């Protein structure tokens, strides 16, 4: 590692990836937040986001040459995030309650504007999203939130288009139900 660190001072140029347009640094710089947010939406705990974001970019770097420049970048990245998040959640110790996850134990301030109105009501939306099974959630995020065309969604997640549509429909229904459930039963 020492050698690795010092070698950078010499800044050995590396041949550009075959895409010809997007190098890893550009992807990292431009999509860091996107990957971070995608992992978070996929249920990765705050404290683990750095690790998993790191893992995703390692994988991205490894697979960069496979990237077809005709594809949209974000869905492709989301595929990495999805697979990472799936592995992550498969570990029993990472199955957790998320409804309380945004509580901030280090900051017990009583009301100030109701803890910024429960973190601006986003907690509700997040909790509802968290209620979705991961496969459905991924379709929902890609299509309804990131506004990716369905064929691309299906391709990046490696599922048939019909399956993707079916998951989307289920996800929307589940989400709507989760919202009303949380709204009605929500007492701090």
């Amino acid at each position: 590692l020492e050698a690795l660190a010092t070698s950078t001072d010499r800044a050995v140029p590396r041949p550009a990836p075959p895409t010809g347009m997007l190098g890893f640094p550009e992807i990292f710089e431009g999509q860091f937040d996107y990957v971070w947010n995608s992992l978070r939406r996929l249920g990765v705990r705050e404290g683990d986001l750095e690790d998993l974001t790191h893992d995703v970019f390692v994988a991205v770097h490894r697979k960069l040459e496979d990237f077809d420049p005709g594809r949209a970048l974000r869905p492709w990245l989301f595929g990495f995030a999805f697979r990472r998040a799936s592995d992550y959640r498969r570990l029993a110790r990472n199955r957790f309650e998320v409804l309380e996850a945004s509580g901030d134990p280090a900051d017990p301030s009583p009301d100030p504007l109701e803890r910024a109105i429960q973190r601006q009501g986003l907690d509700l939306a997040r909790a509802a999203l968290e209620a979705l099974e991961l496969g459905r959630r991924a379709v929902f995020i890609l299509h309804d939130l990131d506004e990716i065309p369905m064929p691309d969604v299906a391709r990046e997640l490696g599922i048939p288009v019909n399956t993707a549509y079916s998951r989307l429909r289920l996800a929307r229904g589940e989400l709507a139900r989760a919202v009303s459930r949380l709204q009605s039963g929500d007492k701090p």
Partner: protein
Amino acid sequence: VTFDHSANVPEHILSALKADGQLAAPAGARGRVLSRLGVGVVAAGAAVALPSPLSAAVGKATGTSVTPGASGVFGLGLVKTLAAHPILSVFATLAIGSSVGVGAYTALKPKPTRALVVANVVEVARRSAPSPAESRIFPPAAPTVPLAPPTAAPPPMPTSAPAADELAAAPTVEQSPPAPSADTAQNPEPALVPAPDLPRSGGARLAEQQALLDQARAALRRGDGAGALAIVTGHERLHPVTEFAEERDAIGILALVMVGRADDAWVRAEAFARRHPTSLFLPSIQRSLRPRDATTRKPEAAK
């Protein structure tokens, strides 16, 4: 073939989730991940647009297997880099909006590290402090949020809590600003219809205002930033001068953040910090303007 895009997911939930996806990762995260990836991966591209202090820090950090808590490795270089980050610098300008604000804030939240960062960032922030332009946040016309005419609105609930609860379950359309009907009902002389704020604020008027703001809070609570914004805007028009300005403005800022108008929220927050330098809401507002994940980093850093 078109696919039913809206289905039955509430629109404000969709927009809240979309806005949620636009958040920036915590300020230090990018640098730490970068350092772990190692310059062998990232800096190899030579022409990377990385801030030079960060690159230098990366060089130092790669040898030492950096953990998320080890932000000290980056030292001042990273602090400077962070200062260039728009979110942090606004956070800082907010805090230095008045020097009293800084004092009050650190007194309220005795967290040495955070206070230190604020202090470090002050220099940069001072240079880049935007000029307050409040008018563009809540334009007088507010064309995007049609408000019901005051006379058509139902009288507000006398007490705040039930009103808020009811509205929490009600569809967003319901949120029209209440008319001054509570007052006019008791006043023998016919009041002017648009009812500018009366010089004296009777109990009924105060309750009415509080109910309105409770509705705004309820809207925020369920993720309806646009609804909250509409209520706040209506309240602003009905009560330009009010004891509730501080609370109302705070809610307005949170609502702006929620609907994704972060720039407006920042400008507004800066004005807020000047106007209410000792406000108890200030820390909450500051927190809402920063990436929400940032709070997870502070416990270990505070020691």
